[in-house]
């Protein structure tokens, strides 16, 4: 039984460092692997070459998905997001027809930053040449400039798919994916769209190679170790993710399998730097919105990424809400931190768990740090009982966001942020 307000996920598409689709990522997460594609990248002309361990998407994977796609200038993020969308639409059994009322909500932190830096660098380099003039018109491709905006991936996606519904980009750090999810739920409920593509995408820009991640230790981490006593900071990764959302009734009419229902979403901010308190507020708010008691939650897909202060704050928030018996897994131990895409990678792992009925372990976690609260962090896969799961995301700019998902389609209830 579904109602008009049931919002469900009917398709998922992912291109990650583990390859094409949700299955390779799910296998990696479930098998307790650390991120396997640790790569060394070169620096950029502005500085001496630096190396940065990170988990990168293989361009050959993107090219394979986009084989046959019309040519056109798309930057790295736009290509990656388009590839994820193609996979998601196929998963949801959707063609490009009838996209008139389809909307797009995308999360990214850095989309277009490298293109922006390239624009500036072109001018800087030209300034060294005594005869250079009209640099903008002679050295810059008119096709490149528009790639430098934060909205470029979502815009390109709408153009490629003919998606004429709402189109918005969230640049809200690691919580942006859940913000995009909330926006999509609102758009579907209000009737502004009949289908929403919720996306997350980030590619590591070379221009940021010299910058350490927020809340890292003195050494660059070779692997993320969420909640672990030896964690020394997050490790960057890349990913493109798209989830197809629609009303449950529409999905049933189309005869497409429902992968999960979105029961509630909530987001908060900690103006006083108290990430624990903000996280508690977003968790409780989301649970209240769908009338759930904490003990009814079967698993928490935590946002922990190996950050020193962030993981500790999240552990205390989870302890305050769920105590020490609810299963907690932090998939960034395997997937690393894909920034604007991260929350949707977590969501994809949660949906996969709901389908497979197994909760993944936390890769890289062996024993908790002394600053980690008493929560039940899984070190091995565990069966997932029927019931809701929570995806919790946070970032070092002190936002917290929570989504509640369930395998069966049930009414979403009020999504107030109270």
């Amino acid at each position, binding site marked *: 039984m579904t109602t008009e307000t049931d919002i469900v996920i009917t398709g998922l598409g992912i291109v990650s460092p583990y390859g094409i689709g949700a299955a390779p990522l799910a296998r990696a997460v479930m098998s307790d692997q650390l991120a396997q594609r640790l790569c060394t990248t070169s620096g950029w002309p502005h500085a001496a070459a630096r190396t940065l361990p990170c988990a990168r998407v293989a361009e050959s994977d993107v090219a394979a998905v986009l084989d046959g796609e019309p040519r056109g200038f798309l930057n790295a993020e736009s290509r990656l997001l388009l590839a994820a969308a193609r996979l998601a639409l196929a998963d949801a059994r959707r063609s490009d027809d009838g996209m008139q009322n389809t909307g797009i909500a995308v999360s990214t932190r850095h989309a277009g930053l490298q293109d922006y830096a390239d624009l500036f660098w072109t001018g800087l380099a030209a300034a060294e040449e005594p005869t250079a003039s009209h640099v903008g018109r002679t050295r810059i491709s008119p096709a490149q400039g528009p790639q430098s*905006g934060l909205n470029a991936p979502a815009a390109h996606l709408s153009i490629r798919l003919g998606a004429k519904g709402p189109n918005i980009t969230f640049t809200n750090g690691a919580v942006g994916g859940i913000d995009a999810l909330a926006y999509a739920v609102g758009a579907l409920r209000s009737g*502004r769209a009949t289908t929403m593509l919720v996306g997350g995408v980030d590619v590591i820009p070379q221009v940021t190679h010299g910058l350490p991640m927020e809340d890292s230790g003195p050494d660059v981490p070779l692997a993320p170790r969420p909640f672990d006593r030896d964690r020394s900071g997050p490790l960057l990764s890349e990913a493109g993710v798209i989830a197809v959302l629609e009303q449950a009734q529409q999905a049933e009419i189309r005869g497409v399998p429902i992968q999960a229902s979105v029961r509630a979403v909530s987001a908060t901010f900690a103006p006083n730097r108290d990430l624990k308190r903000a996280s508690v507020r977003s968790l409780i708010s989301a649970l209240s919105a769908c009338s759930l008691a904490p003990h009814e939650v079967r698993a928490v897909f935590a946002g922990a990424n190996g950050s020193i202060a962030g993981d500790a704050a999240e552990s205390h928030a989870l302890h305050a809400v769920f105590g020490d018996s609810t299963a907690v897994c932090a998939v960034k131990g395997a997937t690393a931190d894909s920034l604007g895409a991260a929350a949707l990678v977590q969501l994809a792992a949660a949906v996969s768990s709901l389908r497979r009925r197994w909760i993944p372990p936390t890769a890289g976690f062996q024993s908790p740090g002394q600053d980690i609260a008493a929560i039940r962090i899984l070190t091995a896969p565990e069966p997932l009982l029927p019931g809701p799961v929570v995806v919790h995301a946070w970032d070092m700019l002190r936002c917290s966001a929570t989504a509640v998902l369930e395998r069966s389609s049930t009414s979403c209830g009020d999504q107030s942020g109270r």
Partner: protein
Amino acid sequence: MGVVTTLGCDVETFWLALQRGEVGTHELEHFDTSMLATHRGGELTGLRDLRDEFTAPPLALELATTTATSAAQDARLAGSGIEPDRVGVVFGTVMGTRPVVERWLANPQTQTGGDLTWTSSAALSRAAASRLGFGGPNCVISTACASGNSAISFAADALLSGQADAMIAGGSDELSHAMLMMFDSLRALSPDVVRPFDTNRRGLMLAEGAAALVLERESDAVARKAPIYGRVAGWSNVADAHHITAPHPKGDGATRSIRAALAQAGASAHDVDYVCAHGTGTPSNDIVEATAIHSVFGTHTTHTPVSSLKGALGHAQGAASTIEALCCLLAMRDGIVPLTANCDTPDPTCDLDIVTRRPRAAKLRLVLSNAFGFGGNVECIALGQAP
């Protein structure tokens, strides 16, 4: 309301300058434009003169915090009894804090002196909320140059869904070398002034600035006796889905967005007393916008005054439509349609009632504010008179 523009850093100064027909675009002083074809823009020169460009936070971040603080003060949020955790902040932007990388690239030694959070444009809303102590929904969004209106509609949705009891909605963007070069490459910049809807229009001019509005449910505002400037009556975010830089030639997205915003407001085109146009001054934008207005307004088009602020301000990117929404509220408050600076010979092809040369007195009950962006982002909003 709070605003920082080249025509003033407080609401009333800005509004008076706009009515006087002042123009805030000029020769750029803080950017080396010697290798570009255009050397002018809407630069906050005075503010930049006071900054240490090597160590100061990104200007867009400072503008967001300043305007959000002004808006919160104007709305008397402090001590109002509203729970701070129920107040959210949302800012729209095109480039956010991105221009900070220019300083790091040009002067690598400054890279270690900055705050790493500056690389995240999310800092715009986070810094403002931190300053004000607000813990509600906190977002930075981008729909390119429609971002300011999108922030307003996001805030309205957050209030309607009960996620917050008050929202600060703003837009903020700063000038940058990269953006100047990008628009130069597109041959979209006017060499002298911006002439929206003018027969001799030659392009847009980039600008910087910010504005912020406090939104709350009308019943809450009445109950706490807050100043009410107007109502957000309707809004619509759609995509042209046509081209990354060019608008749909028939104004498809704009037409759909205007219609949907008016429908949400429970109004028809005949109810609209003023259109605050996107009006960038580029040949393509203005004719397409006129086409969309004609599509929706039909024979009523010639009875509806239209103006564009971009002749006076240039194009403040993600801040533009928030500044324009603020202007619409002031226009309704004072019964004055602002003029379109530099529009001396209205383009007959556009066939609109462009308000030129001097402001026009009019009873304004419902106004429409259009915003379009690269990538085909469109967000039009309808604003109603205060009760």
